[in-house]
């Protein structure tokens, strides 16, 4: 079971008792060094200014639905990547490189929140933050604050998901056991599990069925 708070209706409680970290004794040294670093005390913020940090924190909490403790320190992880200039090796010709793009989009996010709700994004209540973000996503390839909305959305979600789903607590809530060397797997195939894997307690919890109207089921 993951350390992270997640409501049963939101996919919590599916893998009771499952812990990827409990397997860390079976990981090779190089891998353990990298993965265990993620549960250590988070690195201090050194890239974002305090204003940017507040906006980024609120943004990342929204994108990843982290509204209580403990939480994966995503803002510190994103900040560390940007401070190290650890980019993916490309930028769009109409956006600056990632660090500058983060600064620019966070400032634009505050601007958008102020336009609509008369206060910076981080000061808005959560439901208002969600409204501002949904508007960015809904614009698709249309411009938002002078930038192509889909590219801004892609930048945020790419960094957010990479940080969050690299964390063992996040693996616990999706049933993924993490590193698999030098042990490997023995039991391949449908419904076959390793002794350390835990079966999904609610296999019928199909998120697709849950939130789509029936007539949409066959759309491509």
């Amino acid at each position, binding site marked *: 079971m993951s350390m992270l708070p*997640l*409501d049963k*209706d*939101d*996919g919590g409680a*599916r893998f009771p008792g499952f812990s990827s970290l409990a397997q860390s004794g079976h990981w*090779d040294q*190089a*891998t353990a060094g*990298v993965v265990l670093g993620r549960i250590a005390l988070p690195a201090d913020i050194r890239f974002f200014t305090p204003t940017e940090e507040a906006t980024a924190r609120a943004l990342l909490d929204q*994108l*990843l*639905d982290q509204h209580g403790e403990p939480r994966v320190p995503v803002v510190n992880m994103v900040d560390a990547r940007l401070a190290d200039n*650890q*980019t*993916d*090796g*490309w*930028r*769009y*010709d109409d956006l600056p490189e990632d660090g500058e793009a983060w600064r620019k989009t966070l400032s634009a996010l505050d601007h958008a929140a102020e336009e609509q709700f008369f206060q910076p994004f981080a000061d808005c209540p959560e439901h208002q933050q969600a409204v501002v973000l949904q508007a960015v*996503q809904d614009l698709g390839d249309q411009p938002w604050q002078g930038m192509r909305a889909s590219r801004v959305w892609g930048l945020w*979600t790419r960094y957010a*998901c*990479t*940080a*969050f*789903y*690299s964390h063992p607590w996040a*693996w616990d*809530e*999706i*049933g*993924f056991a993490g*590193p*698999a*060397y*030098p*042990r*490997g*797997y023995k039991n*391949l*195939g*449908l*419904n*076959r*599990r390793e002794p350390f*894997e835990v*079966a*999904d307690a609610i*296999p019928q*919890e*199909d*998120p*697709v*069925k*849950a*939130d789509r109207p029936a007539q949409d*089921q066959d759309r*491509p």
Partner: protein
Amino acid sequence: MNRVRQRNESAWLLPPGPGSNNDLRKHMRRFEDQDEVDIVVVGCGAGGSTVLQRLARAGWRVVGLEAGPFWDPEQDWVSDEAGSHHLYWTEPRVIAGEDPVPLGSNNSGRGVGGSMVHYAGYTPRFHPSDFHTFTADGVGADWPLDYADLKPFYEDIEAELPVAGEAWPWGDPHKYPHRPHPVSGNGELFLRGARACGVTAKVGPVAIANGRFGNRPHCIYRGFCLQGCKVNAKASPLITHIPDALAHGAEIRADSMVTRIGFDERTGKATGVHYVQGGRERYQRARNVAIAGYSIETPRLLLNSTSDRFPEGMCNDFDQVGRYLMVQGAPQTAGRFDDEVRMWKAPPPEVSTEDFYETDPSKPYKRGFSIQTVSPLPITWAEHVAAQGHWGADLRRYMSDYVHWACLGALCEFLPLEGNRVTLAEEKDRYDLPVARFSYSQCDNDRSLMEAAQSVMERILKAAGADEVITIKRYAHLVGGARMAADEEHGVVDQDCRSFAVPNLLITDGSVLPTQGSANPALTIMAVAARAAQKLAETPRTGRND
């Protein structure tokens, strides 16, 4: 002695079990910069390493320069997705066009072994039809060589990697040296779905030994092929060609970034390469130069190598350098099953179909696509889910369902288009060199293939019992950018990978491919490089004079 071992002893030079042969590295031959070696090879990936090994075997004095590190898999690679970022080329690049293609991750490599360090491991051959798509269908380009010219090299490389798979019924039907691997839940569902809708699917072809090969151990099915194989089971040149090259006197100089090709205005020949190592500018003299930096860095290096003779970049007399760069459309479609699939267990490359590879006269588009199993790890899977528009609580809920999803990926043969190219950007990197700007736009045929591939993947997954399917549009692989052609007005190199403009300059990587088929390119890149090396070895070591 085993026939493969007679021509390439790499697998027997490694230690038994995982690990590196550190003695081989420690005692490798070392040349001085002022030594005029027979050939300097820029880049130690699929193409460069093959050339190094072949020419070292032929007795040539060879040096390979590699911008990235000389990996030690046990120390440097991890069984973890985010921790493998250093396997990618992440120097700055600019992407543009109507359909910009993200670079860096799945389509780049760095370090000895190149992108084959983190490729899935699929090694299909091209089909005979790939070599004359223009004559047959009026699209793409004709190669200046035929399938028959490459066939013996395909066979050689397949034995050296080695490749495992079922007897292959498509293209030029052939067998593989190793038997097919067992499949996981993901492969099982692909086979089941394909059978149910009349599509032929086969296990393989993957460059993962099935059984011990030399000292290389058997695969442990841990599913982290894309993070570098710590086991030494999956082939990459780091373990398939570099050990033998070192044993035959090659030097691999890692952490060495080549910045410019040396050129003698008087003779019109290349004289070596300028490179930076540890912050110091150095120059390696050589009688021949082979560039193998792949489809972005090879054109960039040529464009940055200006001189009086080549004011627009070396070999660029006809504005061909950087053009006709291709990616494959690689949509991935996932299906939801009540069963637990746990697709991340076992190597992602398992099962493929090439039923849709060739032009189907009944369809409005030309050429086709292949379909293969892929098995995204959590971060990549989160990209799939986020691409459906999910975020916040919705994203977490979807992700909690991970164990129930199976995933297929298509490779669509996007056509080589003149305007899809690398040029130099205004922006400079830390070596003060202009970075590459890669512009990409799809044509109608490309878009039709993406749609067709998606609908076939949906059909297969639904036939296997999926109650819902989702698709993410993405790209895979790079080829072209310095293509081979019949003459200098249509390409940069000839059928033997020798540049038209500079007699002792070769390009021996994926950038020479004029078309790409629907096949993963690694095997073909190695086969083309092996052929070029053989042709070169037949010439005097002093370099061509014509």
